[in-house]
């Protein structure tokens, strides 16, 4: 039973096709890893899922609802950078996920106290309790991304979109973040799409791994065709392993 339904998506910027004929069905609670060469359209695909942009053709439905017109609370997102608000303290960044639904984006009185208490709890859970009153600039990259994920989850989205969330982190922090994400995944029934450059990571975290690539490739004009989903792997069946993937696709052609 399909929760996220992507039907025959085309997306071009100007005359340049980026995505072509993308189709996808994802069941609720699935963790989908997305890999592909740089510039092939992974972020574009996420933007379409997020409803930040609308596709040139085709449509994307969540739980059968009509295609969304703009981003909303049912879709959470974590970008590689700029995902937290630099002008709010760590605690306020989490509280914002509650407060932003209000008329003026502010909470008062008992409600405010309750939200702050909940936020403090969340911070403890993501290991940022001791930094509650600091500003994001004082956090390391890993802490910032943990905060961004915590913030996104506080809004309880039905699908969570991650665009290279760990791209800027060192391997140690990255491993810790993996654990953090796997824990979260186990605790909720969220549908997650994660773009990554690290296929290992994609395999490790994803239930499914999809690969974007250009099915047709014109060596004299690399921009002539758009990309689509060329592989869709069930990561639990490790026989279609990384190696095949690397050899058969354009993933590793330098951009």
């Amino acid at each position: 039973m399909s929760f996220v339904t992507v039907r025959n998506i085309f997306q071009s910027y100007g005359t340049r096709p980026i995505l072509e004929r993308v189709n996808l069905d994802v069941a609720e609670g699935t963790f989908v890893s997305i890999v592909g060469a740089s510039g092939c359209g992974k972020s574009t695909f996420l933007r379409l899922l997020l409803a930040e942009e609308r596709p040139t053709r085709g449509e994307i439905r969540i739980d059968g609802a009509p295609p969304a017109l703009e981003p909303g609370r049912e879709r959470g997102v974590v970008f590689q950078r700029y995902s937290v608000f630099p002008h709010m303290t760590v605690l306020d960044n989490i509280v914002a996920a509650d407060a932003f639904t209000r008329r003026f984006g502010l909470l008062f009185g008992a409600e405010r106290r309750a939200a702050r208490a909940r936020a403090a709890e969340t911070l403890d859970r993501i290991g940022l309790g001791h930094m509650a009153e600091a500003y994001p600039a004082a956090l390391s990259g890993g802490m910032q991304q943990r905060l961004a994920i915590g913030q996104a989850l506080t809004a309880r989205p039905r699908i969570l979109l991650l665009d290279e969330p760990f791209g800027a982190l060192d391997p140690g922090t990255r491993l810790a973040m993996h654990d953090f994400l796997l824990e979260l995944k186990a605790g909720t029934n969220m549908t997650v799409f994660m773009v990554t450059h690290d296929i290992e990571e994609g395999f490790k975290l994803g239930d499914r791994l999809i690969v974007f690539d250009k099915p047709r490739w014109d060596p004299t004009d690399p921009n002539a065709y758009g990309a689509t989903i060329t592989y869709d792997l069930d990561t639990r069946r490790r026989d279609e392993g990384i190696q095949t993937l690397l050899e058969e696709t354009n993933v590793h052609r330098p951009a």
Partner: protein
Amino acid sequence: MRLINRKPGRPLALFLMLVPFVAVIVAYMVGSDMRLSVNPADKLLPAPSTIADTAARLFTEGDRRTGRVLLWYDTAVSLRRLGIGVGIAALSGLVFGLLIGLLPHVRAGLAGFVAVLSMVPPLAILPILFIVFGLGETSKIVLIVIGITPFLIRDLSQRVIDIPREQIVKAETLGASSLVIALRVALPQIMPRLIQAVRLSLGPAWLFLIAAEAIASDLGLGYRIFLVRRYLAMDVILTYVLWITLLAFLIDLVLRWLSRRLYPWAGAGL
């Protein structure tokens, strides 16, 4: 070692900082001395001691008629006008900056208009301004507002546009309405920039204030300078100029301090 890598020590830095000020003072003293030796009654470049005497008198002695120390009254009146004018300009800059920066419809409507507006020389249409706003306090404040608002709007709307798109999208996914995005994402982030833009506008703001006070007023720093100009009382004028410069510099320092204090998350500028 390259010049760009050579850094002065603290005492040298302090010394270097003083050099240009001392140079200006010395140049003035030489010029003043030369003129006074030719004509001891020369008024154009009074001796520093004369200026000091005049300044002491202006700052302490009351007016013979009313006993008020005029300098303080002038200062209070001018600062009030400046404060209200800059305040209104800052507020409009903020509101229109946000609207233009955030809402594509308003941007389409106003960006071009503000750009043209910023090119209109306000001093040339003074008669019309005076008729519309009267000759009282309003017109003086309005001149300051008209003078600096277009710059503030243009600068701030650009800053709003420069906010990373990711943050806006992020706020949307947290359920924020346009209003909430304006109030809680864009507004706080352009506040430090507003302070910086206001600091840059202080010079022009004083200019417009002085121009306004020279046309219709009977109190204020600009008025006093205008009044004594016809007697070439340079000792008074220079006292007032130094005083205005000092005030402007202090306001600048306070604003910088305020910005660092209120918005610690924003990087510090010059």
